[in-house]
């Protein structure tokens, strides 16, 4: 069994029995797609809701709108069946509750909203989610059980969705 770490603004694909991990999600969102037939999982660590319009997008994994579509494409290329995919969505916390409020402060919610919109447009069911709140999360997805483990440090907790 191998564990693949997905860095910020990256995406990776893994197959049974491997695991996918991403650490320290704050306002970023971790989206996992899983095809239960090929037992292939894909994970993306999204930073921002949408790519700038009318400009080239060198790194699609950074944005929810371009990233999720690209992950679906890559998984399909590797043999996953799109119609069998479901999603698990986590992250998008509101880390700082400051009175100084700008768009940057609300980026967590915008990220989650955009992920949900893109998943719906691509007819992928969101099986479970753990989003919002005000704490950071580390996640680990197991391609064998299709369970997503979420760890927080403040307060200390571990749960499975």
């Amino acid at each position, binding site marked *: 069994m191998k564990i693949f770490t997905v860095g910020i603004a990256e995406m990776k694909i893994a197959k049974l029995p491997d695991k996918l991990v991403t*650490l*320290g999600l704050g306002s970023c969102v971790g989206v996992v797609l899983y095809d239960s037939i090929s037992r292939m999982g894909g994970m993306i660590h999204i*930073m921002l809701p949408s790519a700038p319009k009318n400009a080239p997008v060198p790194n699609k994994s950074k944005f929810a709108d371009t990233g999720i579509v690209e992950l679906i494409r890559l998984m399909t290329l590797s043999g996953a069946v799109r119609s069998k995919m479901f999603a698990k969505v986590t992250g998008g916390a509101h880390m700082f509750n400051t009175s100084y409020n700008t768009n940057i402060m609300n980026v967590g919610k915008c990220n989650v909203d955009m992920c949900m919109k893109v998943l719906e447009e691509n007819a992928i069911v969101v099986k479970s989610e753990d989003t919002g709140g005000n704490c*950071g*999360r580390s996640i680990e997805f197991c391609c064998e059980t299709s369970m997503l483990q979420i760890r927080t440090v403040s307060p200390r907790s571990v749960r499975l969705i």
Partner: protein
Amino acid sequence: MFDICNIKKNELDFFQELENIGASHAATALSVMLGRTISLRVPCVQFCEYKKICDILKGPENLVAGLLVGISDDLNGFILLVLDNDDAYNLSGSVISDIEAGAPGSDFSELQTSALKEIANILIGSYITAISSLTGLKMNASVPELVIDMAGAIMNLLTSAYGEYGDAVLFLETEFVDEAQSIFGHFFLIPDVNSYKILIEKMGIG
């Protein structure tokens, strides 16, 4: 659009000098408050790939205390003060009496939280006053907010502030060292992209 990926050498030098002045004022203010010497590690302008940003803080899962202040008026952006959780605990304990501090390893007491915010206030207040009088640009600081969480989650703020412009983050960073207690603090000034432009134009080095 000001391109942070193609920042010039003289612009970097200018930001470096700005950070030097702001940080040394802040260190002096904190030294006076604590009654002991606070020294600076070389202040620097970092142009850091966002993949590597958490390495500065010992990895994305390291438990840290982040104190955030918003900057507005002529210049806009954030100042973020980040300490290791244990260092934040010791630092806050050193400005209040032992009786009022909780046992080591326990959660921060209300008084400790407030002490930390006050330290942030003093550091950041003297920092922006120095930069304001140097540049003639006005800056207002918001009330500090304290968050204790994973370094990665806290540093998301920097990455999302610059994410749209490229694959790197530009910030001014200084390490504060309280040698008596071996406390390290990282101090980040994160102007928004437009404020970088304003600073460069104002100083006539564009």
